[in-house]
């Protein structure tokens, strides 16, 4: 007989304890304490009745790693626990996770109200899916909850925003926007990649679905692509507006997911139908790395946010810098929202504008030696990029302005290195820009990067 769990039922464990333990109990057969990487496609059934029960969703049993895998499940439970959701479904990437949530919640003819200050890849994805899947999106300035309300139509089925906008640093008024969504019988979905559950848990403020690119701070080390959807279990998907979730499913002999699985209805649908059909599953190895990353999430985020604030304050005081869009800086227009939703810090990704514009931006990036020039954020290493020519280059000028970006905008993802070394690096870059002539109307870079 093994020793039994003792006394844990009633303890409310803290975030750091759950970051290390949630989802990962010792492996029963071997006693392995680290979650094993179950690198298998499929699972032997106990008997034919068990197989039937698994495929009918009557019993929780592993069938095929496209829809479930023990290593991936350990990671899913860990994130769901930290976000305060009833569960989570992992995907191959953050964009796959978002697409999965859209695919599950929406039908052709539906309407979505979305922030216009979203990550460029998300904006592109939404516009593409609009055409391919036949739903329609109204993009709004996310900063005023009234804008969301005004955009609602009878066929609106989803609100979508980011906890902290990429790269503009808009902080979403989660509670107010969730109220507008619920007044209209629709869920609020939030991309909380920049906040992570350590800085903000949108479900606690009324959001219904949280999506993450786990590629970023959750993994934390820039080694794997992944995404996850977390759901609160509280949204009434059977309110008449979501037949795709509430009505009997032809793929499961007429099973009605919401009526049968209650608070798990949306996530069961997301896993057993959407993930099954889209196939963009997370690999067990990536899940292992993400679960490992989460163990140090509180420690890393404390250092990330402290370093970022120090770097932002340094930049704000420099003559070469026009503006710094870090929502945590004193005087930020988001200060009240940061105080309410992000008391532990406003993240570690922010942008700033160089006075010299596009040409100065290019020179600045060339001069850096510690910051890596690449298209990612949320690595332990400090990262830098020029959005107008990279992550947001698919956007036209108007869309770029809508997302809060100018030609000279530089985005930083501040890592966990020694802050003095980061400031040393940035100072050298800024001093080099002083030697550059200012942008002309038709400079070479602008022609090379028209969008």
């Amino acid at each position, binding site marked *: 007989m093994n020793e039994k769990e003792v006394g844990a*039922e009633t303890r409310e464990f803290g975030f750091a304890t759950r970051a290390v333990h949630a989802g990962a109990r010792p492996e029963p057969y071997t006693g392995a*304490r680290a979650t094993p990487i179950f690198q298998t496609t499929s699972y032997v059934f106990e008997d034919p009745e068990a197989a039937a029960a698994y495929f009918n969703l009557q019993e929780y049993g592993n069938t095929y790693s496209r829809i479930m895998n023990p290593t991936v*499940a350990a990671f899913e*439970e860990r994130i769901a626990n930290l976000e305060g959701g*009833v569960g989570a479904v992992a995907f191959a990437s953050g964009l796959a996770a978002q697409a999965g949530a859209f695919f599950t919640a929406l039908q052709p003819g539906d309407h979505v109200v979305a922030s216009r200050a979203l990550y460029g890849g998300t904006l592109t994805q939404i516009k593409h899916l609009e055409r391919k899947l036949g739903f329609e999106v109204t993009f709004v300035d996310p900063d005023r909850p009234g804008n969301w309300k005004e955009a609602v139509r009878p066929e609106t089925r989803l609100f979508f925003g980011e906890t902290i906008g990429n790269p503009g640093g808009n902080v979403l008024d989660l509670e107010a926007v969730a109220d507008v969504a619920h007044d209209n019988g629709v869920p609020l979905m939030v991309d909380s990649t920049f906040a992570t559950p350590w800085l903000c848990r949108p479900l606690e403020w009324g959001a219904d679905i949280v999506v993450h690119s786990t590629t970023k701070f959750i993994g934390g080390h820039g080694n794997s692509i992944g995404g996850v959807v977390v759901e609160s279990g509280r949204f009434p998907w059977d309110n008449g507006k979501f037949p795709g979730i509430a009505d009997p499913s032809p793929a499961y002999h007429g099973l009605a997911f919401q009526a049968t699985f*209650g608070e798990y209805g949306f996530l069961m649908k997301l896993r057993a139908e959407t993930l099954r059909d889209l196939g963009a599953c997370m690999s067990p190895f990536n899940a292992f790395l993400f679960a490992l990353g989460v163990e140090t999430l509180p420690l890393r985020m404390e250092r990330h946010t402290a370093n970022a604030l120090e770097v932002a304050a340094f930049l704000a005081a420099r003559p070469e810098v026009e503006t710094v869009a870090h929502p945590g800086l004193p005087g930020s227009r988001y200060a009240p929202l940061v105080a309410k939703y992000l008391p532990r810090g406003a993240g570690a990704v922010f942008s700033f504008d160089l006075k010299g514009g596009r040409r100065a931006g290019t020179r600045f990036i060339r001069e850096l030696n510690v910051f890596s020039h690449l298209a990612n954020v949320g690595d332990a290493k400090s990262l830098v990029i020029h959005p107008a020519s990279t992550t947001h280059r698919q956007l036209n000028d108007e869309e770029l302005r809508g997302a809060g970006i100018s030609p000279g905008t530089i985005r930083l993802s501040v890592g966990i290195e020694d802050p003095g070394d980061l400031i040393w690096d940035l100072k050298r870059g800024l001093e080099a820009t002083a030697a550059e002539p200012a942008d002309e109307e038709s400079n070479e870079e602008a022609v090379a990067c028209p969008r």
Partner: protein
Amino acid sequence: MSSVIACELPPRAPGSGSGIDLTRYQDAGAIRRLLTSARTVAVVGLSPKELRASYFVGFYLRRNGYRVVPVNPRETEILGEKCYPSVAAIEEPVDVVNVFRAPAAVPGIVEECAGRAKAIWLQYGVIHEEAAERARALGLEVVMDRCMKVEHARHLGRLHWLGFTTRRITAKRPETP
């Protein structure tokens, strides 16, 4: 139409808006002890239809080692077991009476449980505070607005295999399944 069955879940999230402190009937330690000690479960309102939530639960409990006693006045046999018209008609001792009925039916079921069962377990949305208190006064353990299948899967089964939150934190090595 007979009042057989509130197999369907209510059109709302579990526990929300009832105005009752449901946590008094949802203690994780008590639920775990009940699931571990119980052997025979009477399922009141068990539907013979495979796609109903009650059938999912009855099927699951049977597969996981419980003796399931169906209670449904319109049927003679469900899940291969003799079906009884009421809790009072059951001819064997019962540990848990698991209820898939409209809340209004609960007080009557509670009275039938007295002396016949150790616990009454009211499924998602089956909320009746007075009946729950009466059951306690009769010496019954009470679980309310929880699903017995989900709680079994959370504490003793495989809820975590689907990435659902179990809230279980332990460094002890589990028994091999």
